């Protein structure tokens, strides 16, 4: 099972992402929790691209989601500046309040809610592939 859609390069598009995922949750019988986790992962990745990649509004982000048995594969492709989130430094969550900063929280959440990810730069595009193993309550 495979679905492909585009997200325009605008932060208000997070709502259309939510709409797409709600359709998918039903179609693929995902649990509410799994679908919320996928939403968070994609929200963080798309927000990053929109805020930092310097993409023009005319260059949408391409998303492909594939489900085979219990494995969900998510691929994002954007035409922004080269950026590999898989090598970002994770924040130290044991630090005290005065020493904590805001950086890296998004990447931390992506790491937590996906099982593996891979980055490549291909034909001036960032291609990020993530995999998530769905728990058994998902259809």
């Amino acid at each position, binding site marked *: 099972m495979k679905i492909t859609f585009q997200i325009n390069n605008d*932060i*208000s598009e*997070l*709502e259309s992402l*939510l709409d797409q995922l709600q359709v998918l949750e039903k179609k693929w019988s995902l649990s509410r*929790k799994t679908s*919320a986790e996928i*939403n*968070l992962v994609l*929200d*963080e990745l798309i*927000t990053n691209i929109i*805020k930092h990649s310097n993409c023009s509004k005319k260059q949408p982000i391409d998303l492909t989601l594939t489900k085979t048995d219990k494995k969900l594969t998510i691929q994002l492709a954007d035409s922004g500046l080269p950026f590999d989130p898989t090598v970002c430094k994770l*924040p130290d*969550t*044991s*630090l*005290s*309040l*005065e020493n*904590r900063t*805001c950086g890296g*929280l*998004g990447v*931390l*959440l992506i790491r*937590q809610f996906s099982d593996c990810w891979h980055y490549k730069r291909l034909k001036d595009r960032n291609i990020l592939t993530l995999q998530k193993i769905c728990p058994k309550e998902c259809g």
Partner: protein
Amino acid sequence: METTISKENNTTIFALKGRLDSNSAPQFEHQLQDFLATPATHLVFDFNNLDYISSAGLRVVLNTAKAYKSGKFLFITCAMQEHVQEVFEISGFDSFITIHRSIDESLSVLKG
């Protein structure tokens, strides 16, 4: 996201409804501006109707906690849904931000 601001005795309550993400975080941050510049009451974020939080929302919460760190007023969060609380715990925020089960619990602590 909808925000309802109310005041009870010495406490300002922000009740959040909906989704706190990079789309809604800037407006929320703007609403908080005056409270964070010079805290004059205790502050409670009531998350009872908050369905979703992303790192953009966590940033606002972290900045709020920092603004309240050194003064005499307290910052407390309460009534988190399971997924929101999980995100807080993954981020390690539960080690320095008080999380109560309900708004009543927060208000009774702040009253005493």
